[in-house]
């Protein structure tokens, strides 16, 4: 796989590991947060934690859209799916996530709801065309990567006059969430938790570019390195963070320059801006309400807005009180701090946000490293 295999080269990876070990200051701790669940997953998948020095610690952030989607929104999706005439299209990731009463899209389907797993928003358009007598709803979730496809879906529906297609919009903004974490008391209060830098998301940045992360580097004085997902990328980005810390710098650096530019994908950003606008506030599972962190469909596309079309009203949903996700998502707690971990809460039977997707910190620990806890 060209442009993948090179970045999986074990020899190169081992050299970078050696440099990291060489360059870390043994007299201090390094704590880097990977915002992105993809990074969390990749770290574990390639066995990276075993390779890092003991005084360098990766802290997992809230960057998994499946994990942070609040239960009440998932409940609405299930409510939609259960309407007799609706076909609900969802990415595979959401199928097993439990909402209220442990009901998931899969259990709804087993009770007769018409839920289709799709690989792409394109499939939703095809389904709508193939089922003119049904109402097709696309369950749009995700960060800045899945948002442009959802925007194109709206534009396509309008252009082709597809009346029976709508979008249930749950798109989130990465930078707002990072800001919210950095603004949380535990982080602001440096006594309680120290973060020494951030690995910035790779694919989100292909769309929004490096530029939005400059603010964190300057305002919060933390180094940020945009990093790819392959082991060489991850290790190189960690090394770049170590060097910034050692040098006392707090800059935005781009390890993933092969796909990420300063301004990102202007065309995609314009399409998104044309279709969506900021919501005043949006709830993140585990983090609570984060101002200006979510998108809604603009008025001009409201006939394709499933929330309008089906007059959806969110109901309150209760999280398990023993779940430590709020702390874990902010990087102030770890999966092993949760009493439910691996006992009541497992990937087969997730209780909290961090266990529901394979990118969640609890799921990653359970699957890949529970023997090391």
């Amino acid at each position, binding site marked *: 796989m060209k442009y993948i295999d090179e970045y999986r080269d074990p020899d190169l990876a081992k050299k970078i590991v050696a440099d990291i070990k060489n360059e870390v200051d043994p007299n201090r701790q390094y704590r880097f947060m990977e915002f992105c669940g993809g990074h969390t997953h990749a770290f574990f998948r390639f066995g990276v934690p075993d390779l890092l020095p003991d005084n360098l610690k990766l802290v997992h952030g809230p960057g998994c859209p499946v994990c942070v989607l609040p239960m009440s929104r998932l409940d609405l999706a299930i409510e939609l799916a259960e309407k007799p005439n609706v076909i609900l299209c969802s990415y595979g990731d959401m199928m097993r996530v439990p909402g209220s009463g442990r009901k998931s899209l899969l259990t709804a389907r087993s009770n007769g709801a018409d839920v289709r797993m799709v690989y792409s928003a394109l499939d939703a358009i095809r389904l709508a065309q193939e089922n003119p007598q049904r109402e097709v709803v696309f369950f749009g979730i995700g960060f800045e990567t899945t948002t442009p496809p959802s925007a194109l879906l709206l534009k396509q529906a309008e252009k082709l006059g597809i009346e029976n297609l709508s979008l249930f919009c749950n798109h989130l903004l990465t930078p707002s969430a990072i800001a919210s974490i950095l603004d949380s008391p535990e982080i602001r209060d440096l006594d309680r938790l120290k973060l020494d830098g951030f690995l910035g998301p790779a694919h989100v940045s292909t*769309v929004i570019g490096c530029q939005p992360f400059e603010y964190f580097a300057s305002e919060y004085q933390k180094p940020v390195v945009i990093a790819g997902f392959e082991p060489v990328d991850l290790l190189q980005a960690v090394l770049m963070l170590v060097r910034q810390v050692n040098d006392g710098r707090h800059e935005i650096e781009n390890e993933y320059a092969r796909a990420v530019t300063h301004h990102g994908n202007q065309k995609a950003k314009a399409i998104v801006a044309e279709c969506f606008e900021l919501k005043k506030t949006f709830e993140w599972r585990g983090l609570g309400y984060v101002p200006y962190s979510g998108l809604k469909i603009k008025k001009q596309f409201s006939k394709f807005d499933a929330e309008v079309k089906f007059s959806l009203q969110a109901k309150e949903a209760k999280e398990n009180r023993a779940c430590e996700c709020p702390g874990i998502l902010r990087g102030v707690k770890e999966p092993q701090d949760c009493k439910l971990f691996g006992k009541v809460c497992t990937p087969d039977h997730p209780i909290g946000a961090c266990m529901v997707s394979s990118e969640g910190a609890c799921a990653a620990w359970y699957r890949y490293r529970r023997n090391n806890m």
Partner: protein
Amino acid sequence: MCLAIPVKIESLVDGSDEMAVVSIDGIRREISVALIDDVQVGDYVILHTGYALSKLDEAEAQATIELMQQEHSPLIR
């Protein structure tokens, strides 16, 4: 988050300015290139959920790897 991979543009779909066939190691699939401009056969793009999110800068990719190969010290110095 956001699984995405570099794939090569094999061909542009006739009669559409938005669809292309891409490949990776013998696997081919039709994807949308509506989010990026000036796609050429032979380009590499970053594919996510059936959409190309950006082009891959091959020169940059090559340079990055070479730089890393040179920069990093041999395992035992």
